[in-house]
């Protein structure tokens, strides 16, 4: 299905990441925004609201982030692609409804512009400290899809990708950006509407009284209907059967909850997307995502010039994590260098998936600038000199 | 009741008579219907339903005026009243049912 031209601002622009994200939402067909203002994501809402009348989108600023995601889930069930934008503190308040979105299998997009935490932290400073929260934040077993853009162009592209994934798998999708990329101003090329592929919602077409809100197709994704179409369906956050009625027994828990996980796990190959560069002959591979990928690619080139064979693995989809690919690469390389603007989160996954076949050097990134590559280069030298494989994440030391 | 004035059109109006339907197994024995039936038509029975509650039974069916109060005051949707169709109450003035 092609994008609705009304929402596509075709042409080449110079946009901040935030504004590109709002344009991406319109292009993806998003017509409802639930918002609560928070630095550093409020520019997305401001842009969305300015353009909403023109595009025919509706919005509401709610009283807190808890109600924002509840409103977004409600709006999504009326058939409108819905989104909310927030940052760390807001995401913490949205955890309960992230769980409800998973259980009701409601497509929506949650944009998290990460900032330095914990608590109030430094609102303006970029960080990547919410990655594990997005994956494990809500209670109970579930899978989540999270993308991480590293440039305003990718903020535009990945917002569309996020909506498509959320409609395809009928699941909330998180767009994990950060304050740096959000406020960066770069060239953003918006293609004509007919070149933008949009995933339509998978609707139920059968008899009105035969609709089962959770009857799963072969790929575990059930079909949806809109409120007001006369299906008189019932959905609940409790463990439920196909009819959406609450059923409190173990058998139904397995019958209902496990497919929420299989729906993503059995299709990781389709969902996961990574960007690899020069990993064929690489001795050391930098695994990065989001803003740190900018420094990673520069560090790779500089290291290559000075004769060290370095490759780069950029994670477009951080969750689900590309376990297979990382395990394969672990057998071929001496070490992974993992820069993160936090104190070590996704690096734990890298360590887990390398199964002891390669060293994993964690580089806390961003103290002296997101684009700065000094720490990365010294980490690469440290990686090359190491002779045996440690069984623990190596702390990067500035001395080398 | 003794000193009430006799209504002038007493002969023209036929008092409706309702037929009470009880889903015995839905009843949870709260006795709202027995308490608030204006004509004391219902009474709690001694028999048990499948859940072990005592459902009501119709003690004197002829007194039922089809007022639907028992139907409205039943939290279990276990009782409802339909108009009893017989000859002499055919030209009843109260409109049929609660619609």
């Amino acid at each position: 299905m092609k994008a609705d031209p009304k929402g596509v601002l075709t042409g080449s622009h110079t946009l901040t990441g935030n504004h590109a994200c709002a344009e991406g939402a319109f292009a993806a067909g998003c017509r409802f925004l639930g918002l609560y203002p928070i630095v550093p994501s409020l520019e997305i809402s401001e842009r969305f609201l300015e353009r909403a009348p023109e595009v025919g989108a509706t919005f509401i600023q709610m009283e807190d982030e808890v109600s924002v995601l509840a409103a977004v889930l409600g709006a999504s069930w009326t058939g409108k692609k819905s989104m909310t934008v927030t940052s760390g503190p807001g995401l913490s308040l949205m955890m309960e409804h992230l769980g409800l979105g998973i259980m009701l299998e409601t497509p929506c997009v949650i944009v998290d512009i990460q900032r330095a935490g914990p608590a109030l932290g430094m609102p303006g400073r970029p960080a990547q400290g919410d990655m594990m929260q997005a994956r494990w934040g809500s209670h109970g077993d579930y899978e989540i899809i999270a993308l991480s853009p590293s440039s305003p162009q990718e903020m535009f592209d990945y917002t569309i990708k996020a909506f498509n994934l959320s409609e395809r798998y009928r699941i909330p999708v998180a767009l994990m950006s950060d304050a740096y990329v959000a406020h960066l101003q770069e060239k953003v090329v918006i293609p004509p509407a007919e070149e933008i592929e949009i995933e339509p919602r998978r609707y139920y077409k059968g008899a009105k009284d035969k609709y089962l809100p959770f009857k799963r197709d072969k790929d575990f994704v059930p079909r949806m209907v809109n409120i007001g179409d006369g299906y008189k369906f019932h959905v609940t956050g409790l463990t439920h059967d196909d009819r959406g009625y609450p059923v409190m027994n173990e058998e139904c828990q397995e019958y209902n909850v496990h497919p929420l996980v299989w729906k993503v796990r059995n299709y990781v190959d389709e969902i996961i997307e990574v960007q690899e560069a020069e990993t064929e002959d690489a001795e050391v591979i930098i695994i990065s995502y989001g803003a740190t990928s900018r420094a990673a690619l520069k560090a790779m080139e500089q290291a290559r010039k000075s004769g060290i064979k370095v490759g780069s693995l950029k994670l477009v989809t951080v969750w689900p994590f590309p376990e297979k690919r990382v395990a394969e690469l672990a057998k071929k390389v001496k070490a992974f260098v993992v820069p993160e603007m936090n104190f070590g989160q996704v690096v734990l996954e890298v360590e887990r998936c390398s199964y002891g076949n390669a060293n994993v050097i964690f580089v806390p990134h961003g103290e002296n600038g997101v684009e700065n590559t000094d720490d990365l280069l010294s980490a690469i030298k440290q990686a090359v000199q190491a002779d045996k494989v440690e069984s623990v994440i190596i702390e990067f030391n500035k001395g080398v | 009741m003794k000193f009430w004035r006799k209504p002038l059109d007493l002969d023209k109006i036929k008092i409706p008579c309702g037929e009470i339907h009880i889903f015995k197994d839905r009843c949870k024995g709260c006795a709202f219907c027995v308490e608030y039936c204006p004509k004391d038509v219902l009474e709690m029975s001694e028999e048990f339903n499948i859940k072990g509650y005592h459902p009501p039974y119709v003690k004197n069916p002829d007194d039922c005026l089809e007022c639907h109060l028992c139907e409205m005051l039943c939290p279990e949707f276990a009782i409802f009243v339909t108009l009893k169709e017989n000859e002499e109450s055919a030209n009843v003035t109260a409109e049929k049912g609660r619609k």
Partner: protein
Amino acid sequence: MKAKETKTQEIQSVPSKKGEIHPMENLLRMDRMPHIWCPSCGIGLAVTAFASALEKANIDPNKISIVSGIGCTGRVAGYVKLDSFHTTHGRPIAFGTGIRVANPKIKVVVFSGDGDLIAIGGNHFIHAARRNIDMLVVCVNNFIYAMTGGQVAPTTPLAAYATTSPYGCVEPPFNIPYIADSSGAVYVARWTTLHIRRLINSLAEALQKKGFSVVEVISPCGMYYSRINKLGDGLDMMKFYHDNVEIRHGEDTKNLDIGFQTKIICGKFVDRERPSYMERYNQWLSDVKGGSRDEG
């Protein structure tokens, strides 16, 4: 791990005998009866009143959505045959706001309990009233958190007992009509489950009202509130309502506090006109664009 094809769980329902069709059959999910509420609980009566009000106000059942939160009354959405949502604790009003703003053709009804709407959901209650979102909120007030076993709630009368106020509740309760009125609701009424006909009329009126309308339904809780406080069962509570409810339409919502076993003032207190949220939204839209999208 693959999903095993297990049969849908059949809930043992009590079919009505041939020819015996309860007048509520088309509005309730009869395949789920008998419902879970305890003997002599008033929530069933609130549902009966709501179903009758739907017919009385001849609302198109396809264009109405009912949202419930968590708690005994939270299960109402599961028993009413409409587009129904059983959402998180305290957030049905927020969920309903999303539905209403996204599709102004849908009449949203939020049917939940006192704990759900006024305790955890208080913030959304007052904001939805301030915005005058087009929504009917039915708040079934049984003075206690009953689903979780009888804990004290912000509506538990002073000095009443509950499992978490074993020596008597020390906090004065909320006056729900007063909150609704002062926050901006356009229709505020309070009835008990005993006043079933007046409740039906009030709900029918509220369903046709444009804007944020609140109907508080005082309901007996035979299993917890009356038992823990030694007030008998639900029937005794109904008898208490019979003798202690005073109907004063238009009473100032300031004086509607409820003490422990004191007089309960019922009636319709507020019935005024205020532009609803979507009216203002569309007015703003037509000013901005010179063309209103659709009424709401």
